[in-house]
């Protein structure tokens, strides 16, 4: 177990991980980055709505819920996944770990929520598909291809940024005035360029965690309004 806030995942079989992303070093690092910022979240953000995009097994939101409960932070947890198998597993994870109030929706990123959640998201969590992939490789889900369920969790297109960029472009619209986003990035995603672009849109970016695992250099970025 990686932390005392780690959720119970006994309901998930090894074969489920053929279709759903298994919590890995990037998920754990994202959790560590959030835990490190608990005082900032508690005092500066005071979250009412926490949205995790692409929740997979639900690991991160579950962790955050346990961390928040201990710190007397209570909010509504919305999670989305484009993969229906992931959404189902995540919902079971939340039930098993008593995460409430929560909601799991099958959708592409935040399709369906956007207008009504304008400037309402206090905490946005995203471990995106960040692996650079060849233009010939599809990103997202192909309904006719079972393998795309898992590949949608990592295939990120050009510079691994195609999906991440869609979300970053919506940050100004989505985040509440005190809102903050925690996101996983890879060296190849060029975090310093991400930060520079966000600066011109009115955001500050801080690297809250950094770790080299095998041949991947992972970053956890905290993005908030200037």
């Amino acid at each position, binding site marked *: 177990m990686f932390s005392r806030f780690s959720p119970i995942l006994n309901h998930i079989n090894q074969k489920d991980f053929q279709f759903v992303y298994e919590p890995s070093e990037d998920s754990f690092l994202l959790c560590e980055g959030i835990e490190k910022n608990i005082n900032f979240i508690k005092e500066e953000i005071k979250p*009412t*709505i926490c949205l995790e995009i692409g929740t997979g097994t639900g690991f991160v939101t579950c962790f955050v819920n346990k961390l928040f409960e201990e710190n007397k932070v*209570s*909010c*509504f947890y*919305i999670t989305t996944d*484009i993969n*229906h198998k992931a*959404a*189902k597993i995540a*919902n079971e994870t939340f039930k098993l770990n008593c995460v*409430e*109030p929560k*909601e*799991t*929706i*099958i*959708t*592409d990123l935040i*399709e*369906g*929520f*956007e*207008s*009504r*959640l304008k400037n*309402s998201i206090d905490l946005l969590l995203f471990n995106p598909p960040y692996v650079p992939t060849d233009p010939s490789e599809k990103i997202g889900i192909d*309904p006719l291809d079972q393998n795309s369920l898992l590949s949608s969790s990592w295939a990120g297109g050009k510079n691994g940024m195609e999906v991440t960029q869609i979300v970053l472009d919506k940050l100004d619209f989505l985040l509440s005035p005190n809102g903050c986003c925690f996101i996983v990035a890879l060296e190849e995603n060029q975090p310093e360029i991400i930060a520079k672009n966000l600066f011109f849109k009115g955001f500050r970016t801080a690297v809250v965690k950094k770790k080299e695992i095998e041949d991947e250099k992972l970053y956890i970025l905290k993005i908030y309004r200037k």
Partner: protein
Amino acid sequence: MKLITHNMLESRVKDCPDDKRFPLGINATKVIEQKVVLNKQFIINILTKIDWEVLLEAIKQIGYNEKIELPLEIPVEIEKDDDLIMKIHHALLEIEIIEGELICQGTGRKFTIKEGIANMLLNSEELK
């Protein structure tokens, strides 16, 4: 799916007129009630984001309007009315639509709710 979420969802179908995107209609075939710990401040905070009329209509659509009686408007001094806050908490967070569908009021497109999870995915032809 909780009624708080219904209050936040809209149809993204390309052919839907903008004024018909929100709210989605509800056809619920299985609804359950389950305890969620009350957090008064959360309810007060979230009320600023809730479309009250849409919530009342949603309660009616799932057939709970006799079980949960809410006023037509949110009282100004809501903070002092613990009984009403409890009712709002119940309506927003404790009622779960387990099976059913959400219906786009502009196009009739149905979004399935299965095992408590709404599927809002559209195919590429339906997207804006």
